[in-house]
């Protein structure tokens, strides 16, 4: 399919400029958005192309002046469309093992304000000679000393910048964890919207970049205001649709719930302007865990906080199941992601609710105050809650249960106590400030810490005491690391005990990228299709088709940029078409949109191949071992079964079975002829090998 020219003149939903920032030389330059927007639309797809063009050799350490980070809005940001305020960041991840190119997305208001200042995105290179923040004040960009902000918590940093530049400014900041190059450090904006998973906060810290502040007086205009309004009307009163089978969650049961010890108010809210989804949870009037005698605080979070704080859910995401929410702050129209907000009249609802019958995890006694301490420390230190809550603390707990710390060789500098919130703070202090006997190891991230301690013992030892609901014990490693230095996420073990068709699909997605494709990449398909492959998902072209469909939605979610809590929406298959028409004013077919999505996806593969030597052997070896542990139904994959599935996937993308490299036609089909030429010179255009024989299983567990 030929590239479609979307527009002759850049529409007014774009700001028009991308800012190149060199921290070393303290200089900036401008790239016109127009150069890229036609072919790559925005967000992740555009960032991928920018990265390919700007970075000629991305095989650099994450913590280096040479690591280039790209922040990109999409055309939807700031237009008033619902759930459109997100943005993406790409670059070499500090947390991935091995370090490699990946991406993250973030909500909040910064993206909209940046557009009002005149920029669709920015590129950060180099390293400042002192702790610095970059001030983008309409056309004026300056490099300011941030030494007075050194060590400041995330919110204190933002408040200080508000004082200087007004509350209509917006900032992306790092906390002390980023300053100290902790590989779980996040970049945060507003109240707990964060670029978290790839550890980009550590990269900013290494580069001596404390914050980027934006203040703008410009405007952004959607192509069709009435269409924006109609979309909001629809979202406020969505017609009933049929839920899909999908990523519903395993039920988890914890021990007796403890706390909270004081009354508080809990409300739903949205994380970005004009969003009507209210998927964030704010708890108001809580004691500040880091300053118990100070003012009460309001703590923002979403699904993850629910898990960490409450830890008592018959369903993992049991929003509203046990707490009386105020009258109007209630959850909005989610996609069919959470069974409890699915259409209660749908005749298939019972089926979905019965399918997922997960593990009894037997984790530590759920404690509101313990969870709140984790949340607040992560918010203020600038740490990734997912890895801290789901990986670090579960790892400590599971190692302790298996007696791995009994020999005293691992010394956290304080007795392990899951009843004491101060233990949580102590661990996060050690990680953030690199203090105590384990500080430096913790700051290197859970995956690297476990490798340094000895993965065979501290990572792969099997945890006992996890049972299915029918009482059968399931053994999984004490570390829930699944692939690329990431903890399991929709990969069938750990917290997400989804069915095999889902975790197999999700592992394919993770396999060809470098992280979990949370949100947009959640596995979705029709119930009818599910019935055809549920007993043998790894040989189903239909599941491959669904996986690629979900890949495309994920790409577009991060390119427009929309929110993973809504897109894809099975109840609204024309969502992207309508949003593009309303914001950009262009008629696009779904096929044309998919074409851009595929182009973005292949650009990511091009970067992984060019900079990190990505091959089939590498990525299959990365994801396969985790799937050899039993899921809640006792399911695994065999080596051949998994490789059959990979074959189907590669064939669908027209990639070589032996190397995993796209064919010349695959590049050219999405309009990346120049990249095909590049790889031809590099000798990485695959030639079909008639003697190709699949390698034998190298894993013998």
């Amino acid at each position, binding site marked *: 399919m030929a590239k479609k020219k979307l527009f002759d003149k850049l529409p007014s939903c774009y700001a028009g400029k991308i800012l190149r920032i060199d921290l070393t030389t303290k200089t900036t330059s401008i790239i016109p958005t127009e150069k890229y927007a036609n072919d790559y639309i925005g967000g992740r797809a555009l960032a991928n192309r920018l990265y390919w063009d700007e970075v000629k050799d991305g095989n650099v350490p994450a913590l280096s002046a040479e690591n280039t980070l790209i922040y990109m809005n999409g055309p939807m940001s*700031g237009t008033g469309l619902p759930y459109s305020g997100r943005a993406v960041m790409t670059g070499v991840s500090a947390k991935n093992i091995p370090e490699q190119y990946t991406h993250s997305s973030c909500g909040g208001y910064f993206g909209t304000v940046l557009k009002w200042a005149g920029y669709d995105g920015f590129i950060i290179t180099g390293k400042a000679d002192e702790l610095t923040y970059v001030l983008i004040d309409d056309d004026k960009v300056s490099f300011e000393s941030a030494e007075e902000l050194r060590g400041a918590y995330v*919110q204190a940093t933002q408040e200080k910048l508000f004082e200087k530049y007004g509350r209509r400014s917006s900032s992306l900041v790092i906390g002390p964890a980023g300053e100290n190059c902790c590989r779980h450090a996040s970049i945060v904006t507003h109240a707990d919207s964060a670029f978290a998973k790839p550890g980009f906060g550590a990269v900013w810290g290494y580069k001596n970049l404390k914050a980027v502040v934006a203040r703008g007086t410009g405007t952004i*205009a959607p192509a069709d205001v009435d269409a924006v309004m109609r979309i909001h009307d629809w979202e406020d009163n969505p017609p009933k649709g049929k839920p899909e089978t999908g990523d519903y969650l395993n039920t988890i049961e914890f021990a007796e719930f403890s706390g909270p010890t004081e009354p508080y108010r809990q409300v739903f809210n949205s994380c970005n302007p*004009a969003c009507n989804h209210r998927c964030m949870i704010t708890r108001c009037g809580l004691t500040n865990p880091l300053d118990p005698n100070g003012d009460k605080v309001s703590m*923002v979070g979403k699904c993850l906080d629910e898990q960490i704080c409450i830890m008592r859910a018959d369903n993992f995401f049991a929003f509203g199941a046990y*707490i009386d929410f*105020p009258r109007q*702050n209630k959850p909005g129209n989610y996609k069919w992601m959470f069974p409890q907000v699915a259409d209660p009249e749908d005749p298939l609802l019972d089926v979905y609710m019965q399918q997922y019958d997960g593990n009894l995890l037997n984790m530590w006694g759920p404690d509101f105050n313990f969870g709140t301490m984790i949340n607040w420390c992560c918010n203020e230190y600038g740490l990734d809650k997912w890895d801290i809550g789901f990986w670090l603390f579960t790892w400590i707990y599971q190692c302790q249960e298996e007696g791995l710390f009994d020999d005293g060789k691992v010394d956290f500098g304080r007795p392990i106590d899951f009843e004491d919130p101060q233990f949580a703070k102590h661990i996060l202090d050690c990680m953030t400030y690199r203090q105590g006997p384990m500080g430096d190891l913790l700051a290197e991230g859970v995956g690297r810490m476990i490798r340094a301690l000895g993965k065979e013992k501290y990572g792969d030892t099997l945890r006992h005491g996890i049972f299915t609901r029918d009482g059968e014990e399931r053994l999984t490693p004490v570390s829930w690391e699944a692939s690329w230095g990431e903890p399991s996420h929709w990969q069938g073990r750990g917290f997400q005990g989804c069915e095999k068709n889902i975790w197999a699909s999700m592992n394919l997605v993770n396999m060809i990228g470098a992280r979990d494709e949370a949100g947009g990449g959640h596995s979705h398909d029709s119930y009818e299709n599910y019935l055809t492959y549920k007993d043998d998902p790894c040989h189903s072209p239909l599941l491959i088709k669904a996986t690629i469909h979900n890949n495309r939605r994920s790409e577009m979610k991060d390119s427009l940029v929309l929110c993973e809590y809504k897109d894809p929406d099975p109840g609204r298959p024309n969502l992207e078409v309508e949003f593009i028409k309303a914001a950009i004013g262009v008629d696009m077919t779904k096929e044309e949109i998919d074409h851009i999505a595929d182009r973005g996806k292949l650009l990511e593969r091009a970067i992984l191949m060019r900079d990190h030597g990505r091959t089939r052997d590498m990525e299959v070896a990365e994801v396969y071992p985790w799937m050899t542990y039993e899921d809640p139904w006792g399911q695994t994959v065999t080596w051949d079964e998994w490789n059959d599935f990979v074959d189907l996937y590669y064939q669908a993308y027209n990639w070589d079975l032996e190397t995993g490299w796209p064919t010349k036609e695959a590049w050219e089909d999405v309009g990346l002829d120049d990249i095909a030429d590049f790889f031809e010179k590099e000798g990485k255009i695959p030639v079909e090998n008639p003697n190709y024989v699949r390698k034998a299983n190298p894993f013998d567990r």
Partner: protein
Amino acid sequence: MKNDHIIQYPEEYSHCIGCSSCELFCSLVHDGVTGPCRGGIKLELGKLSTLMNKVYVCEHCEDHPCYEACPKKDRAMCVDENGTVYINEEECIGCGLCARACKLTPSRITMDKKNRKAHKCDLCRTREDGPVCIKRCPVVCLGLASDPLPYDPEKLGGAK
């Protein structure tokens, strides 16, 4: 005595989370664009640690000192048959006298210095669906003073 105007409900009923939808849609329906703050409705963001936010909007006072102060009264600053005080921007010369005459703090009239125009709430008087800020507030924390309250003030509890 005040004419009809936008009010912010008590936080016990609905918590304004500072999403700025009210401001953004005010700009969209009046100007077709989003911008930092058109001025029809003003959101004052509270501290991040508390997230207690306030909305300020014209109360369409019956004595309307802004109208009285306008040198182009009835052409630039006008009052309609419902007592809604509004600005005819084509006639506005951006002198700022109305903003200074507003007796509320902060002034409910915003000066657009770049374009030399004043902006204030006009209750979306020509919009069929009524004020867009009310319609689009995702947490229903805005309403009209004249409408029956959607809650019983007697039954509003404090913290849960």
